[in-house]
């Protein structure tokens, strides 16, 4: 009969009216400023730079200004200038560091590609979203001081991922240490051999050791891709 569909519709809306008072599956509103939504661990918004410790963020940035993220960034929102000098990093090894590292958050689209391509685990995704400012330009251009956040913060927002990263870094470091030791031993042996021969030049340490703080420094180059292909 004409009108039965309409009455059915009225029943549905009445059910929802009642349901919105007692059924959390229907009434899903979170009243935001008072109640903050629970962010999933995977949530990402804008990158930040990881520093090893909180007391000296600029001295312990993991970033070595290799500029890969700058090249890979699809909207080109990262600007990096390498330092002329080298500064000791967290492990006391001299490294090139970013003299300028700026991200224009008005351009950044939080796509996470910088994070994925970074061979040093130096840039990670933040979870900030209350970032309104009163100006359109300077306040949205974040420099390295604003971008640097300690590793403990990273552990706070992405615990699982950060633990993986730390484990991987430690493993790398250990491997590099062993390699360096082996290299040193080899060097010593070579030196000995050289001393014995008293003519041939000493061999150079392998490239991989640069990854580790105990490594020998020099201009950083990206890790071979095959190592990081399936990570994350």
């Amino acid at each position, binding site marked *: 009969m*004409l*009108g*039965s*569909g*309409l009455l*059915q*519709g009225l*029943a*549905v*809306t009445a*059910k*929802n009216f009642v349901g919105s008072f007692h059924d959390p*599956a*229907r009434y*899903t509103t979170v009243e935001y400023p008072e109640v903050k939504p629970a962010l*999933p*661990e*995977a*949530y*990402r918004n804008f990158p930040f730079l990881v520093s090893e410790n909180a007391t000296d963020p600029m001295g312990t940035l993991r970033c070595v200004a290799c500029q*890969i993220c700058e090249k*890979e*960034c*699809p909207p080109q929102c990262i600007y990096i200038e390498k330092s002329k000098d080298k500064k000791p990093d967290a492990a006391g090894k001299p490294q090139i560091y970013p003299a300028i590292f700026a991200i224009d958050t008005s351009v950044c*689209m*939080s*796509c*996470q*590609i910088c994070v*994925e*391509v970074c061979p040093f685990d130096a840039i990670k*995704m933040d979870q900030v979203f209350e970032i309104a400012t009163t100006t359109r330009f300077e306040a949205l251009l974040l420099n390295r001081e604003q971008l640097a956040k300690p590793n403990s913060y990273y552990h706070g927002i992405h615990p699982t991922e950060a633990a993986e990263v730390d484990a991987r870094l430690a493993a790398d470091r250990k491997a590099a240490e062993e390699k360096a030791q082996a290299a040193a031993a080899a060097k010593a042996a070579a030196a000995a051999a050289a001393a014995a021969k008293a003519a041939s030049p000493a061999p150079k340490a392998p490239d991989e050791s640069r990854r580790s703080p105990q490594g020998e420094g020099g201009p950083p180059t*990206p890790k071979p*891709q*095959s190592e*990081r*292909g*399936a990570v*994350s």
Partner: protein
Amino acid sequence: MNPELLTPGGANVRAVHDAFHGDLLEVSMGPHHPSTHGVFRMIVTLDGERIVKLKPVFGYLHRNHEKLGETVSYLGSMPYTDRLDYLSAMTNNWAYAIAVEKLAGQPVPERAEYVRVILAELTRLLNHTCLAGFLMQDCGCSGTPLMYAFREREKILDLFESLSGSRMMCNYQRFGGCRVDPTPAWVDATRTLVGNYGAFLDEFEALLTGNEIIMARTQGVGVLSAALAINAGVTGPMLRATGVASDLRKSDAYGVYPRFQFRVPLGAHGDVYDRYMVRVLEMRESIRILEQALAGLPGGPIMDPKAKLRGFRPKAGEAYGRIEGPKGEIGFYLVSDGGPNPLRYRVRPPSFINLTVLEDMCLGQTVADAVIILGSVDIVLGEVDR
């Protein structure tokens, strides 16, 4: 009314401008109009309230998507594809990934194929639910179906967020797999959502499908003939609503779709109601696919271990990758010269191509119909204007 006015193209619009018919009224609907789904403009010529001519104007949201794709690396285009049809980022990602994988000959692990199917069908649920809500909003419901649709959409977006980190701009697929491996908790949450979705659809349909006003508003309105639909290259639910059995999931059998049991609903009249119903029925089929895919989700790697992320340079050649997106055939055509960027990057946007038959559907209908016909095409201006 003069039957001549009903002919497609409205060739003789000015001829009827005589004393008997009175003046024609030209109304510019949009770009700032509540129901043009973004910044879209229809220049409508009216005889009374009947449409005798309709000229769509778009491009207000043009942002050089295709040229941009030629200037950034293959990976760099992935987040941009999110922004084409921002309601179905996951399927856009997948179509682009398929194109690049074809170009580079990159295999995809089985687990990733299953996850892709799950995400694509979730996207279909999300997109069709939203569309039904928008369409009913265009019909004049005071937001109620739209809010119900958005309530459920939020639940799907929560899943996307906990998996990919972003609700809409997922940037999730990679060449040779997916970026993140879904956890068992995520799979369980998806299973719960899929289990509850049927009940939501029942309620949603109780509110809308049998409603006499909606039937009166949408049945016989905006009829699109199968012949015109095929000639114009219309795809997706719009084509199926005209009765043409065309679904890339069946005909292309990409991914692991051949492993799942599902049916393709077909309309018979090609009107707005059919387009709405075909989508609703498709959602029910999507639920079936999701149940099967979640049950059969295999273990193993989510990413091909040999896949390259950085310094990705496919050999010279060309490839066209397409999938059945929620709106129709979403395809990416790529030409590589062996460099890090594509030489040519071209999108086949389903909602843009579906929109081309708008005038043919609207002629002879009223202004009120034009609004719901536009709503039933299911456009997202991010994709139309690119």
